[in-house]
């Protein structure tokens, strides 16, 4: 896969950014699900940084609109009436659809649901777009709800480990351009790799791409990126914001699909 460049980046992390709700449009605020709101604000912030409007959208989400799914089922099981609005939002690609609607993004609209590897999968999917599908808006978004808190201690040990900091919910947005820019931040991923019962860190090390230009490189194995579904995207965003030189390779592990993801960044 070729490198593609990041021309804009933003993050909405409610746990550290209490003011993000002020950027939610009034109409969205009262009716639209929180996960849509997070994605919207992140997209808005990111698009504002870029000259060209995105032509396509790629969303990375592990569980989608969990709250809406739960609310829909609650309606069905409680008194036999599921809310249509809850159902619409519960479909995995509802965030991508809403963003296309709000920001008038007419091109390809993809949603990758690869658990903790969703961000790697989405970046790799960008590598499959056509030239005129760029710039692409890439958003990694997942939400935490009380039900998930209740379930996590009872999930498999691997899943529990991966979601040890699952309160880290939010939306991380990038605007990606197809052409590698000379002085920008470059990113690429070859997607998600099935590893079976192999140790994720060992598999990650075997899959490490060769170093580029002997630049210093930060390597974050899956065991160091765990915590929440958006960890990998959050780390990529941090790397970009810190303006660190050199490169980074960020690994992730999804126990439910026994697979790892790998995202490579460099300047």
């Amino acid at each position, binding site marked *: 896969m070729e490198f593609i460049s990041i021309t804009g980046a933003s993050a909405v992390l409610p746990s550290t950014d209490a003011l993000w709700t002020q950027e939610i449009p*009034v*109409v969205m605020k*009262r*009716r639209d699900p929180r996960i849509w709101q997070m994605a919207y604000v992140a997209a808005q912030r990111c698009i504002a940084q870029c000259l060209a409007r995105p032509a396509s959208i790629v969303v990375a989400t592990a569980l989608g609109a969990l709250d809406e799914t739960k609310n829909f089922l609650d309606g069905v099981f409680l*008194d036999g*009436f*599921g*809310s*249509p*609005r809850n159902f*619409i939002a519960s479909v995995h690609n509802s965030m991508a659809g809403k963003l296309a609607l709000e920001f008038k993004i007419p091109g390809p609209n993809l949603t990758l649901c690869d658990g903790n590897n969703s961000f790697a999968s989405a970046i790799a999917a960008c590598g499959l777009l056509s030239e005129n599908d760029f710039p692409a808006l890439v958003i990694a978004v997942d939400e935490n709800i009380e039900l998930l808190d209740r379930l996590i201690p009872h999930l498999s040990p691997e899943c529990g480990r991966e979601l040890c900091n699952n309160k880290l919910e939010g939306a991380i947005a990038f605007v990606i351009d197809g052409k590698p820019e000379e002085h920008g931040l470059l990113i690429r991923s070859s997607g998600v790799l099935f590893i079976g019962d192999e140790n994720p860190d060992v598999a990650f090390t075997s899959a490490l791409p060769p170093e580029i230009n002997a630049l210093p490189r930060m390597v974050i194995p899956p065991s160091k990126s765990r915590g929440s579904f958006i960890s990998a995207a959050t780390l990529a965003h941090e790397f970009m914001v810190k303006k660190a030189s050199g490169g980074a390779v960020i690994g992730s592990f999804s126990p439910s699909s026994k697979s790892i993801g790998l995202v490579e960044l460099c300047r």
Partner: protein
Amino acid sequence: MEQLIDTLKKRIIASLKLSDVSPADIDPDAPLIGGPLGIDSIDTLELLVLLEKEYGVTVPDVKVGRAVFASVRSLAGYIEKNRVKA
């Protein structure tokens, strides 16, 4: 009928999550759908759920629904005529 209209206003506000609207703000004769409250076609479906859940009233299809939802008053009228639950 006026009491039903009052109750309906409150239920509409709750069901459609119109949190910045109070019952006094709703003109019972103003258009519901596409009117000042910003109710869209998906809201219409929510209102159909509301009708069935609270009053046991069903609307045969969305087209009839649009006539029924012409205003809060027309909605109250339809419920009075067809309600199954008290």
